[in-house]
Every structure is written in C-alpha cells, then in structure tokens.
C-alpha cells in the first residue's frame, strides 16, 4: 500500500482501490495541515476527551436521575387514573351498564394500555353489549399473553360457540378445564366442563358429552346439587345407569332432597325399574307436592307395577284379574284407535281380540294358565300398534305399553 502512494501500483489492485488510497491520502494530508502537523485520524485526546467523557457520564447519570424522578410521578399518575376509571367500569359492569363500562374501561386502558385485568373486563363488557368480534380481538391478545388463563379461555370458548366454530370452541373449553384460575379453581373447572357438556349436547354430540360427563362425575364434591346436575345431564344423554348412580350418591348426602329424589325416580323409571322408581317418586312427591312431573311419572310407574301380570309374588286370582283388565283396556284402545280412523293391521287385531275375548275370564285363565301369555301377547301387540298408529297413549294404556317394552327386553 505504501508503494501506491509513491506511484507504484501493486499487482491486480483495481482502480477503485487506487482512488480510495489516493483520496484518503489527500484528505489525510490536508487534515494534517489543518491540525497543525498531526494526523487527525490518529490524534490523541487524552486530556480534553477524557474530561469530556467523564462529563458525559456525569450528565447521563444526572439525566437518568432526573428523568427517573419524573417517570415515577408520571407512572404513579397514570396508574391512579387507570385505577380510578377501572373502578368505575367494574361497578358499572357489575350493574350490567355495559355501555358505560366499556367507555370507562377504555379510558382506564389509556393509562395502562397493557393492563390484563382492564382488557379482560373490557372484553366482558363488550360481550355484554353483544359486540363479540371486538371482545374476541381483545381476548385473543390476552390469550397470547397468558394462554393458560381460565377466564380468557372460557370467554373465547363462548364466543367460538356462539359463532358455531365447534373445533375452536372445544379447544378453548378444554383449555379452560385445564387452565389456571385466580380463585375457586376446582369449581371453575367443573363449571367449565358443565358448560362444555351443554355445548356438546347442543351440538347433539352425545358420545363426547358422555365422556366429559364421566370425567366430571369422577371429580364431584359431596354435594347433592352437583350430583343431581350430573344425573340430569346423564339422563339427557340417555345414560340412565350413570344418572341413577349419581342421584344415589346425591341421596347418600341428602336423603330427602326432592330434586335428587325426583331425578332418581326418573332415572329408575327410564331404566324400567318401576318399583324403585315408584319408591323414589313417592318420596319426591311427598317432599315436594308441587312437582307435577314426578307425580305424573309416579302414577304411570304405579300403574306399571300394578298392571304387570308377570310380576312375582302375586296370586293366580290377582294375575287373572290383571290380565282381564289389561285385555279389556287393550280392546278399548283398539276400538278408539279404529274409530279415530286408523286402519292397517287394526282389523286383524280386532278379530283376534274378539276371538279370544270369550276365553279371557277368571275361570278360563285359572283353567288354562297358558292363556295369560297368549292374552298378554295380544295386549302388547295391540298397544304397540295402536301407539304407532294413533300416538303415545296415556294412563293404563301407557302402563301396558311400558310393560310390553319391559318384557320385550327381558
């Protein structure tokens, strides 16, 4: 390089390098002159510049101290203003004045933009105003910051459920169940799972609802209300055995709880355990006389128990009487159904009934016990076909239909 300055070019040095060398050398010499003979690029500044550096450091320290003081005042003021507006918003949210709450939470956020609690409350106020898309945006932001937050996941799940985004809703509901909650973690998780089950039942996804319900049942406290709720849900998905088990667990805690008794009666009824159902329902009705549904169910269960000729430990005479009554009831049902205009197999059933009618007497049944089977088989067929042609019966006809189903299964 030194040679270059003397005009001797090194091998394969390009013209741009040449130019840079020359220009730099010119600049260097010009500045050398200006600086009184010293090269500025290498000029040493020990004295003045050391002092300057020290002064700069000092100034920076003073500056930091000063701005720190201002910063403390500023942040304290911002926090106070944020809290003031948040408190107002929270009060309005509690009183369901969502519009005002939204405005106040937004103002609070002006002073603490990333405050998690402010944003979450704003999202809830927005949900209250049915502005779910705005709330969703806030919640997504919060979710990114704390994906394990239960409240955020739950709200997101609800919005997704509203929007019929099933997969998204399921994901957020599951997050909610395994998320962390500020307080009452177990209760919140149970409630989230219950909400998920309701969502699944709404979507008619009974299989998944059942598995969620079994998981829920495993973690229930000794609270009859909780068992009753679980039992109700089991009933809704058609899992009567689990339902009855839950009601029984509830009754272990509170034997006279009318809701649990009614649920247990209903479950036993669905399981065709009519004697048990009758017992539970009787207790339910006596505990809560205004429970008409249980009373109605009780009367049906009582009829089923009473009109079942195949039940054990009844005398021959009693059985003959029951069969006679059942035969007569079926004949009435057939007639009324025929009169109502139903055709099809009704006429042949009527002929069969007429043919058998003469034999269905107390004496006849006592003489020929096989007639019980024959008569009841005809009764069951009549009730089934009438039910199909003329709609679900009530009273004794319903009892007979249920008895038919009971023995059909057996």
């Amino acid at each position, binding site marked *: *390089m*030194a040679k*270059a*300055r003397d*005009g*001797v*070019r090194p*091998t*394969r040095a390009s*013209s*741009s390098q*040449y*130019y*840079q*060398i*020359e*220009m*730099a*050398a010119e*600049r*260097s010499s010009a500045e050398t002159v200006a600086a009184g003979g010293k*090269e*500025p*690029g*290498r*000029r*040493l*500044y*020990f004295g003045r*510049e*050391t002092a*300057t*550096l020290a002064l*700069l450091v000092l*100034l*920076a320290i003073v*500056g*930091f101290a*000063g*701005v*720190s003081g*201002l*910063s403390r005042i*500023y942040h304290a*003021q*911002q926090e106070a*203003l944020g809290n003031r*507006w948040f408190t107002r918003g929270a009060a309005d949210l509690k009183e369901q004045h969502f519009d005002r709450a939204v*405005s106040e939470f*937004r*103002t609070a956020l*002006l002073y603490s*933009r*990333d405050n998690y609690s402010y944003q979450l409350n704003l999202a809830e106020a927005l949900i209250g105003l049915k502005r779910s*898309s*705005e709330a969703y*945006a*806030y919640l*997504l*932001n919060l979710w990114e910051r704390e994906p394990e937050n239960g409240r955020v996941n739950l709200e997101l799940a609800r919005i997704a459920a509203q929007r019929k985004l099933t997969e998204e809703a399921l994901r957020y509901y599951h997050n909610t169940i395994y998320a962390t909650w500020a307080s009452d973690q177990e209760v919140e998780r149970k409630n989230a799972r219950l909400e998920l089950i309701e969502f699944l039942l709404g979507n008619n996804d009974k299989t998944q609802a059942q598995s969620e319900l079994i998981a829920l049942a495993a973690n229930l406290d000794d609270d009859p209300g909780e068992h009753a709720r679980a039992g109700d849900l089991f009933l809704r998905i058609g899992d009567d055995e689990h339902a009855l088990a839950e009601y029984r667990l509830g009754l272990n805690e509170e034997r006279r709880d009318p809701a649990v008794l009614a649920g247990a009666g209903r479950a036993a009824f669905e399981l065709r355990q009519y004697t048990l159902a009758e017992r539970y329902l009787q207790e339910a009705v006596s505990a809560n006389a205004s429970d008409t549904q249980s009373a109605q169910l009780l009367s049906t269960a009582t009829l089923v128990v009473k009109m079942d000729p195949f039940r054990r430990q009844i005398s021959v005479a009693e059985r003959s009487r029951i069969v006679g009554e059942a035969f007569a009831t079926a004949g009435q049902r057939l007639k009324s159904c025929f009169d109502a205009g139903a055709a099809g197999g009704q006429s042949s059933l009527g002929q069969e009934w007429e043919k058998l009618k003469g034999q269905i007497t107390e004496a006849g049944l006592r003489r020929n016990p096989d007639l019980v089977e024959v008569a009841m088989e005809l009764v069951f067929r009549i009730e089934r076909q009438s039910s199909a042609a003329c709609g679900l019966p009530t009273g004794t006809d319903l009892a007979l239909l249920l008895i038919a189903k009971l023995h059909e299964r057996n």
Partner: protein
Amino acid sequence: MNSQDLAVEAAAPERSRGSWLRSVFREETFFLIVSVFIGIFSGLAVVCFRFAIDWCHIYLLGTGATPSTTRLLLAPSLAGLVIAVLVIHVFPLARGSGVNQTKAALYIYNGYIPLKTAVGKFITSALAIGAGHSLGPEDPSLQIGASLASALGRRMRLSRDRMRLIAPVGAAAGLAAAFNAPISAVLFVIEEVIGRWTAGILGSVVLSAVSSVVVMRWFLGSESLFRIPPVQMERPSELIAYSILGVVGGLASVAFSSGIATLRPWCRALPRWTQYFQPAVAGLLIGLIAVLGAPQVMGAGYVYIDRAMHGQFTWQMLAILAGLKIVATLLSFVSGTPGGMFAPTLFIGAMLGAAVGGAEHVVMPHLTGSPGTYALVGMGVLFAGFLRAPMTSVFMVLEVSGNYSIIVPVLVANTLAYLISRGLQPTAIFDVLTRQDGLDLPSMEEQREEGILRVEDAMRAVGDPVLEGEETIGSVLGQADKASSDILLVRLSPTGWSSVSKEELQRMAGEGKSELSLNSLFMTRPIPYLHPDQSLDTALRFVNRWPLVPVVSRADFRKLEGVVTQSDVLSRYREFGEG
C-alpha cells in the same frame, strides 16, 4: 477497515501499534462513543417529551376518553394561540415537522442546529399534540435528537466532517426512541436524510438509535406503539385485495401531499398578523370535527390505530376517520403548528387499510385477512406513498408487527402506492416543503432515481494494436509506426497494463534498448484500468493523469474491452447534460 483506515495504515504503518486507550481516543472511535451518549440524551429527551405530551393532554383535554365540548373547542384553539406567539417570537425554527431542518443542518449549516430549536420544538409540539392538534411526536423527536447531538458536537469541537454527520445521528436516536423501532429509524435517516450508506455513518447511527431505544424502554417499557393482533395471509389470491389497498393508498397519499403542497404556501402568503391566529383557527376546526363525532382525529391517535387493528370500527367509520384525519392534519400542518406527520400518516394508513379490508370482506367474504392485517399493510402503504420512503415503509411494518408472514402483501401494496404516488406527484413531500422554504436540499428520491453514466457509455473500441509485455522494443517498433494514435497500450505479464508513446519507443530504441522486453521496462510504471460497469465519475479521476486508460473485463484483467480518454469522458458528460 474503511478507506481512511486503509490510507492511514498505508501512510504510517510504523505507528499502527497503540494502546487500547489510544485507539479509544482516535476521533472515529471516539465519535462512536459519543454516538452512544447522543442516543442516551436523545432517549431521555424523548421520554420527557412523551411525559409532556401526556400531561398537556390530561390538563388540557381532561382524563376521560371523550372530553367535554368546551374542552374540545377551547383546548386546541387556545393552545394554537400560545404556540403561534412562541413560534413567531421565541422559537422561529420550531415550525414544521423537523425532518427538513435536520437535512438542512447536514447539507447547509455544517451540522448546526441551535439548542433553542430543541427547546422550542419540545414545548410547542408537546402543547400542540397534547391539546389535540392532529400531529405526531416522531418528527419533533427526530429534530430534538438532532439538535441535542449538534449542541454536543459543538461543545466537543468535533471536526467539520463529524459535525455534519452528528445531526443525522441524533435524528436517528430521536426517531428511534419516539417510534420504539430502531431499524426503521436507522433506515429512515439513511434513506431520507443522509442518502448514502457507509460503515462509519451506519455504525454511529445504529449505536445512537439502539441506545436511545434502550433508554426509552427503560422508562416507558418495551411495548410497541400498538398491540398487534394475529396477522395472516392464507391464500396468494388475496394479494389482489392488498393490491387494491395499494392503489387506494397511493391515491390517498397524492391527495394528502397535494393538499399540503397547495395550502401551505397559500397560508404563508396571508398577511403576517394572520399567522398569530392560523394555529388557533386550525385548532378550533379540529375541535369542531371532534365535537361533531370524530374525536379520534385529535392528537397522534395511536390509541385509535390500536382499536382499528382490533376491529372496533365499521369499515364506513374507518373510511370517514381516514378522510377527516387528512383534513385535520392538513389544517394543523399548513397553519404552521409544530408537530410531525409520521403519526397522522400511520393513522390515515391504518384507517384506510382497515376500511378497504372491511369493504373487501363485504364483497368477498372468503378473505382471511383480519382488520389488523389490513391496517398494518395500510400504514406501510401511506408511509411509502406519502413519505416516499419505500424501504423504511416495509421494515417499519415488519418491525412494528414482528411478523414476517405479512411481508408479501406489504411489498406488493407499498410498491403500488409508491409508484402511483410518484407517477401522479413527481416531487416527494419533503422536497416540496424544502423548496417552499426557499432551500435547495438534495432530494434523496431524485438521487435514487438519477441515471448513472458508466465507463461503458464513454469507452470506445481499440483501434490500435496492443503491445505484449514479452515483446522487445525493437520488435514492436513496426507495429507502433502503423498505429494511428500516439499512445499505445502495453499488456504486461503476468498481469497489469502500461502505456507508452511512439516517441518514447523510438527514443528507447535509440538508447540501445531494442533487445529489452517491454515487461522489464514498464513493469515499474503500471497504469490503472477500469471496468465497463464502473461509474464515469471514477474514470474522471484517472483520465486527466493518464491519456489512455484501458477498460478490461472483470473476469480476465488481460482481456481488453475498450479504452477511454479524457475527451471521451467529457463529451459523454456533455451529451448527457444536453440530453
């Protein structure tokens, strides 16, 4: 190692050993250290500036999100009166955005910006923005940083070269702290203020920007200006939607800059006494817009950009806000109220982007882009179209969003907006403002677009034979006699070029050197060579010292592509100037 280092090393290799302290106190190294301090002081100043704006807002407009009608009307207009008095009588240089003043410091005043300007900018801008004028804090922060840096440089008696550079270094620090985006700040200052990249400048600018951002985050936290919602682009066909945004943004940019270009000189031409009232009238009109239902247009508006990104406005409302913000910013800026245009540009871009996205969603419901994605792209679009900083516009969006999946729509939309804006309004807004102020600062955009003459444009084919280094003087005399030119090129072995005149060859032959090879005689006096793609400016450095300069291939330095002489270069320049 830069050219200067190279030169210094070449000039005095014996002095290259020095202690660590010596190297620290070399001016170039010392300048880097000073850059860090510039960043620190700028960061502190910008933090105070932010506090001042917020305090002005709280005390002038109240603590609520929607101030009362009285405050909405009185605060900006009364603040306007105070600002006018301050700008006219105390801080005349505080007027405007600050970008051009920093450029003027670099190109005209040798880096000089009075400290009083920083004080004036701080007070008047904080008052204006805090009172609700539609302006932003970024450009004032840029000027405050530049002014602080200039003051520091003067106290330290830096050399003129360093003094010129110190204002942009401070500008980058100020902008980085205001924007909380160091990459964008560095790019903007290099793209729009300095206009060139060198290692020395880049080092200082980066150090100052980073240190100012660190200081700012120390006091104000590291959150970006807006909370960025998840952004995505699932289908490439959606680029059409973003292209539409680019076109709309380009047209809006033209409308915005044309408004400023037309109204600013008109306002300045009004009688002098009106200048006392112009900011107040602008403030009153902005207050009126707020009272009539659009308080969002007041101030910098970052809160509302955030809300637009989170889908909290209908697309119709977003479009209205974009239009009203253009009007409000025009009013504030052309009235001479000090304050920046970055924030309003981002506001308009975000609103416009989200509005276009929302409208497109109505027409094409299958589009997956969220309002936030469109708002982000929209900000970049306006940045590219209005401020005409295409590189910064792309990096700004990426830096602010922290999401690179958005890069393709940003590139497409920004390019379209930039081209449309450039096509419809050839002069960039900063250049328009400079010329309105009676200055003639170099236009970075014009520089970027300027045609460059290259060596290949001036070189001509080689007509005369090239003498080979292995040949003897005696053997080449015949070739030399037949040559039309007086100077002949010599191809040296193994590499290099030299030249010789016919007369010199004959003289050497007469001196009895006929049997000597050309290599042995000319190896010690090589001449430089050029490549066809080099700029003609480079050739100009050589052609006055060497009558004939060879132009050789980059792949093979011995392969001659042509030659160039001083007259070739000058005539090419003449033709270019006439053309």
